[in-house]
């Protein structure tokens, strides 16, 4: 399956990141090749097969349990905020979003 520049531009927008302009053509060739190879999955008869979201789906009753709704950590504003690229008054700072 061929994936062209405009397909890539569209997914760049969805993923909110950009490849450099000069890498676009190279990536479209690579991606087209990868999809040609991936297309072999169409040979497999998957009629009636349930999609497998994770390897423990049959053990879900042993894994995915709700925890008691209690505070288990917190009170570490300083440690959290120290990783923020821009913070003031214990808050993350971004450019104005509402006019």
């Amino acid at each position, binding site marked *: 399956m061929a994936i062209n520049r405009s397909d890539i531009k569209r997914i760049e927008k969805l993923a909110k990141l950009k490849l450099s302009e000069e890498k676009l053509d190279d990536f479209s060739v690579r991606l087209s090749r990868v999809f040609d190879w*991936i297309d072999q999955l169409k040979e497999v008869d998957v009629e009636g097969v349930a999609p497998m979201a994770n390897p423990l789906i049959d053990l879900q009753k042993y894994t995915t349990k709700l925890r008691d709704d209690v505070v288990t950590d917190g009170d570490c504003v300083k440690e959290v905020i120290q990783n923020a690229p821009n913070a003031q008054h214990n808050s993350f700072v971004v450019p104005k979003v509402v006019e």
Partner: protein
Amino acid sequence: MTDLTRLDYASVRKGLTSKAFTVKELIQAYINNIDKTRHLNCFITEMSEHALKQASEADERIRNNEARPLEGLPLAIKDNFCTKGILTTNGSKMLSNFIPPYDSTITQKLSDAGAIGLGKTNLDEFAMGSSTITSYYDPTVNPWKKEGSDRDLTPGGSSGGSAASVAARSSLIALGTDTGGSIRQPASFCGIVGLKPTYGLCSRYGIVAFASSLDQAGPLTRTVRDSAIVLNQMAGHDSKDFTSVKYPLPDYEAALTGNIKGLKVGIPTEYRMEGLDSEISEWWEKTSQWLSDQGAEIIDVSLPHTKYALPVYYIVAPAEASSNLARYDGVRYGYRAPNTTSLEEIYELSRTQGFGDEVKRRILLGTYVLSSGKYEDYYLRAQKVRQKVTEDFTETFKKVDVLLTPTTASTAFELGENVTDPLAMYLQDLFTVATNLAGIPAISVPVAQSKEGLPIGMQLIGPRFGEETLLRTADVIEKTAGFKLKEEF
């Protein structure tokens, strides 16, 4: 005094208990090796000062007969495990300034058991790769070289820094993660043991997520026994990871009985594929003969959907990655692009500048297969074929106890080789990736040096929670093979 870095942890444990040496001497010996092998670029962050301080405390505990199960263990930690107060970069510019306010469950458990962190090891950016080449912090170099050559080889990846460090004796045991082979392939390339446990056995809490339905933490060690010792401390339910399983834990070390009489070993015919190095193929035969000589029954089996595992992986892993990596937005932590004037621009420029090319390619691939109109054709179909790949294993493990295959189709390749062809790189995961899709455990154990002098690893695959049988069989292979790490690198 003997070089303490030559001992495995089982011997270290004895030496510390009998007070033949101190933890401080042991840790200092490792720090000296970190200095000596810095050209291999195993570590992104070294923790020597911290380690020496902990060593004194460990010696105090030993003096008071309060030694814990991993007391004094010189441990390297892949840099995608969050470590409280210690830089955790994930090999990415995106997290080049990230200091976690908490510890991953696994690092916390090992630290509580007495292990001493020596440093954070290099990896492919966001663990995406099989060579450690995509790291923002430059590639790691394999301590092994081809005989008569001084060209640098890759240690494999993504846990390349961890594997190279254990092989070069700048750590005794290292933590890795395995999403498609990222523990086993580098273990094989570096001549050490690498274990990927059953999905759900070891907590994923605090490990930077790549593909959440595939990621699993495991140890890289010099001996099978050391893998068993450290797995005893890593395994177990964690309420902070909702895919963590409550499973009655055995003593994995006790599983190493040396007895494999009556064990049924399957050889999957589909793994005898084109492109498999002939020397590796010969050692595969030999290894199966060793097992047969010691009472195991060798049975040819078929896993008919094997060839679809890799294309399934290259849909599922990028899809999950594109979703997991959406959190890197330049707002709360991680890299933020300078000179931005709108929130939208912060997102786009921070991600564009913060991620390397391979990560971007995988995010874009994942975004594409999840996008409207493509989801059913690709993502949903891949999940269904994943079920078929898993059913192959389920059926096969009704007939055999373990599967024996090579870990990789080739020995370590030169740094820079293969990178121009993404499909050739992806083929590095050929033998390892199906087990991640199925969530079952596998271990790589070194069996021999190739004629060029490079390590060859064999892989054992087991059913879910079959770690005991894997370790017991790997232990027998290890003892028969008598593989030795090089004296000097």
